């Protein structure tokens, strides 16, 4: 299996993602600069990592959503390639219009960095299948603008269609209805605020994030 991690100026979890994917799945991982207009051939997963792409100028993810590589990411997603936006990557996907809603300033106005327990709301998505009967996953959040927002109608639709993948058990940032992760209509694009890339081995406090990557890429 083959994955790529996009590197924006200001990304800071790009190498964490590469290591997390390699160690949890055995897949090979290419790093792709944001200025690239093409992605490597034969990808099974594209990850938009955490960080502060373009310094969060204007709005978190707004500039990154317009970078050259996003045209290729959008085209790959349209072909069915799995795309996962983690933290800042989730913000980029919302700004790019590839996922509904937006990420706002945390309700407490503070940057929140801690391990959180998540309900695996739907274990039948492409990104959660490996959780199987495991209904709770522990990962780390690290965000200042991590409060998910969408209007009530959109939220009803997301919930009704099983597109809420993860929900906070104890909402750390004021996300509406506790939403921590959602998937696109056709299920191949995931946005998740907590970091599976910071929870892929027990030495890190939790190995539950590995299951997310294994859901997409299997394990060799």
């Amino acid at each position: 299996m083959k994955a790529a991690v996009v590197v924006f100026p200001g990304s800071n979890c790009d190498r964490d993602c590469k290591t997390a994917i390699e160690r949890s799945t055995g897949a090979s991982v290419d790093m792709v600069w944001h200025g690239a207009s093409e992605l490597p051939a034969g990808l099974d997963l594209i990850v938009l990592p955490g960080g502060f792409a373009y310094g969060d100028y204007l709005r978190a993810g707004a500039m990154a959503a317009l970078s050259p590589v996003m045209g290729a990411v959008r085209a790959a997603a349209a072909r069915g390639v799995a795309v996962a936006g983690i933290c800042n990557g989730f913000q980029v996907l919302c700004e790019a219009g590839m996922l509904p809603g937006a990420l706002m300033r945390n309700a407490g106005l503070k940057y929140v960095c801690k391990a959180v327990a998540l309900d695996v709301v739907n274990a039948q998505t492409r990104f959660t299948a490996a959780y199987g009967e495991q209904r709770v996953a522990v990962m780390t959040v690290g965000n200042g603008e991590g409060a998910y927002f969408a209007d009530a109608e959109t939220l009803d639709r997301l919930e009704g269609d099983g597109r809420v993948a993860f929900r906070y058990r104890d909402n750390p940032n004021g996300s509406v209805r506790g939403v921590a992760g959602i998937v696109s209509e056709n299920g191949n694009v995931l946005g998740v605020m907590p970091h599976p890339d910071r929870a892929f081995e027990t030495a890190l406090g939790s190995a539950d994030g590995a299951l997310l990557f294994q859901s997409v890429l299997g394990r060799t």
Partner: protein
Amino acid sequence: MRAKVEVFLKPGVLDVQGKAVENALHGLGWPGAANVRVGRVITLDIGQGTPEAARAEVEAMCERLLASPVIESYRVEVGGAA
């Protein structure tokens, strides 16, 4: 021509910054301060043309980039020398 764009969170979207500023104003002795909203102002020069055309262009910029259609509303002013 000069243009000015004001961007605020939509009514109904909780403005946590505005709320914090409001609380601070109360603490400083202005208990009557209410409905504080914190927004963003963007000014720019745009080319020659009618004010109507300039407004349409800046509104397009707002839709594409300057404001988030999900959470923000905007107000455009055009006019004045560049």
